[in-house]
């Protein structure tokens, strides 16, 4: 407690209420505004307009009202895709973030060869979406994979984890957790952003390591945790390539790994229903936006900014 109090007093008084700085802001935002107007908004509006059409890419789109949206209500594969995606997001995002945070704390400082460890832990994330990932994953979780060999040592008979509808999604969650390198790097950077003097002051007050973590590291890191949460949330909802390469593009077995964007892709490009795919994209946008908004609202209660009033 005292450490946090100290922290607040170190920050000094709240920043004075500022007048608008529209001109400066406009100049700083100029590249972004140009990009927004020329590159971002056009395709966004176009995809919104296309969501009210039948569009097969090969011929001009034809207006069909809200038909695509009505169809989404009845589309059982779409509902399945939503369930799969929500399960995936709810399980893999917290797991991945937790692991990333723990390892960032371990790898922050105080040990020889940290650069190598960090790189080693980050390496899996570098593999990206290459076809190698899919093959490697079958080598691990396949019928004759490493996991089953290891289970065999203990006399347990394994199964085809990757192609059993009960476990396939689980292996993709593990795949996502396995690539925790990205949030870990961001946590590492965030940890280094915390001024050392806060710790010094807390130490002088006799705070132990656990207290320091709870009262300094954690609150100071909340903006970064929050950022990672939003980043991983949006990323997980849009997650595509891993399911695509591992299932060979089908979302199988039995649609158990049919991620929302994978189904969207199948509709848009394999079935040439770009109108429907666009409608699906906007539903996804609404879902992600709503969850992000909730998170921003909730962040008032747990995210601590150094520049707050």
């Amino acid at each position, binding site marked *: 407690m005292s450490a946090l109090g100290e922290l607040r007093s170190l920050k000094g008084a709240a920043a004075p209420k500022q007048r608008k700085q529209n001109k400066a802001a406009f100049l700083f935002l100029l590249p972004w505004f140009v990009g927004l*107007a*020329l590159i971002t*908004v*056009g*395709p966004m*509006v*176009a995809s919104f*307009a296309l969501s009210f059409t*039948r569009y*097969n*890419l*090969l*011929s*001009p*789109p034809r207006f069909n009202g809200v038909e695509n949206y009505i169809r989404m209500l009845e589309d059982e594969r779409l509902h399945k895709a939503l369930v799969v995606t929500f399960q995936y997001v709810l399980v893999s995002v917290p797991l991945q973030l937790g692991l990333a945070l723990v390892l960032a704390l371990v790898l922050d400082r105080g040990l020889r060869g940290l650069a190598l460890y960090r790189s080693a832990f980050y390496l899996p994330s570098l593999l990206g979406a290459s076809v190698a990932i*899919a*093959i490697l994953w*079958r080598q691990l979780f*396949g*019928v004759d994979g490493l996991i089953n060999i290891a289970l065999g040592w203990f006399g347990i008979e394994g*199964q*085809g984890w*990757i*192609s*059993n*509808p009960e476990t396939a999604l689980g292996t993709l969650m593990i795949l996502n957790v396995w690539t925790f390198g990205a949030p870990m790097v961001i946590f590492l950077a965030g940890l280094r952003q915390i001024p050392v003097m806060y710790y010094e002051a807390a130490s002088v007050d006799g705070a132990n390591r656990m207290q320091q973590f709870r009262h300094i590291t954690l609150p100071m890191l909340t903006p970064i945790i929050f950022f990672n949460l939003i980043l991983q949330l949006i990323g997980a909802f849009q997650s595509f390539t891993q399911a695509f390469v*591992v*299932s*060979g*593009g*089908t979302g*199988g*077995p*039995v*649609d158990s790994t049919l991620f929302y964007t994978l189904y969207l892709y*199948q509709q848009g*490009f*394999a*079935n*040439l*229903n770009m109108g429907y795919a666009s409608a699906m994209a906007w539903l996804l946008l609404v879902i992600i936006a709503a969850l992000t908004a909730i998170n921003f609202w909730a962040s008032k209660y747990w995210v601590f900014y150094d520049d707050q009033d």
Partner: protein
Amino acid sequence: MRGITRRRAGFVAAIGAATLVLTACAGNDAGGGEAAAPELKLSDEPVTLSFTWWGNDTRHAATEEIIAAFEAEYPNITIEPQYTDWAGYWDKLSTSVAAGDIPDIIQMDEKQLSTYAANGVLADLGELSSILSTEDFPEAVLGTGALDGTQYGVPVGINSYTIIANKDLLDQYGVDLPDDETWTWDDFVATAEEVATASGGAIVGTQSWGFEDGGLNNWLRQHGESLYDGAEVAASEETLAGWWEFLLEATEAGATPDPAATIERESGGLAESFTATNASAFGPWWSNQVQALRDASGQDLVALRVPSTADGSAYYKPSMFWSASAKTEHQAEVATFLDFLANSEEAADLLLAERGVPANEKIREYITPKLDEVNQTVVEFLDGLAPEVGDAPPATPPGGGAIETIIDQHTQKVLFGELTPEQAATSFIEELQRALDDAAI
């Protein structure tokens, strides 16, 4: 906003192109087919054509050599290659068509041909007939590239569905190679089960089927049906259900592997398949995959006829087509290059059987002695099949490309017991018909 207006401009252009094609076709019909084909003349100016295909590095290298040979012969024409793998190919092609950037020469697949043709993307090759000759192609094979009498694609290679048997494994477990002239589906499953049992579970009897339409087409034809009739799904629920029922029985009998293993191998493609890794005695494949499978397995693989093959139930499927853009500004040059690809011995020398056994009969005769042993057996197999070969199945209607996901998904549901074969048949027809209706113009 800007994106939208630009798009609209693109669409207007696309409509224009489509109208042009329609009028061109109409003119052709009125004039009585090929006789009305205009005389094409090569330009005196240098011309650049774009040429797109899918494949692997071997095909890319062979095709680039063909391009070089062509450019040496026609110094005025430059061919710009564009290549990708199968999945990326269609994403890229449809996107570029949306913007009106259609490659001049396009490698086409049977399942996509009608979709692209119906949307006015592909040229009527009859228009190019003053340069592009198709006289060395058998009528029936050439017909697979035509829709309602208009030729949209020149067949490149021919293929047939086959059961590949691993002779080394059969020998090892003391099972005789079955006689494929007489064997029935029950014989097939019984033999597969025999091998699996003899191996004590070391290998599986046969790979499962049901992951693409080749096997289904054969089954339907043996039952006197076809998958499509025009833009309608024509397969009956009984026959479809029977097909999946039979797969289930084979799985229960131990002739095919358990579902999880099947799906796992299936998502790994050819390289990780049971056949390629010598883990099964039999497997259903296309004849043009024999070479790749032999290379991967290193054992003696032979192509057998599909069980119960009877008069007219077998068919030759074109491995792919050469098509041209309806919007090309250089018809004469496109025709010249297509003619080089389809009819020249030079191109054949470089390509050999990389795109399948040539559909062009003259070229096939010319090239056969030059093929390696494996491909010669494939040619023999295809020739030997000739008496049983009937007309090609009705062309895949627009939107039929969706069958790839639909068939795969339903077979998985049957294997994992989520749907009974009967339910799967009903749902399959419903979903496929929906895809066709979506694509209807």
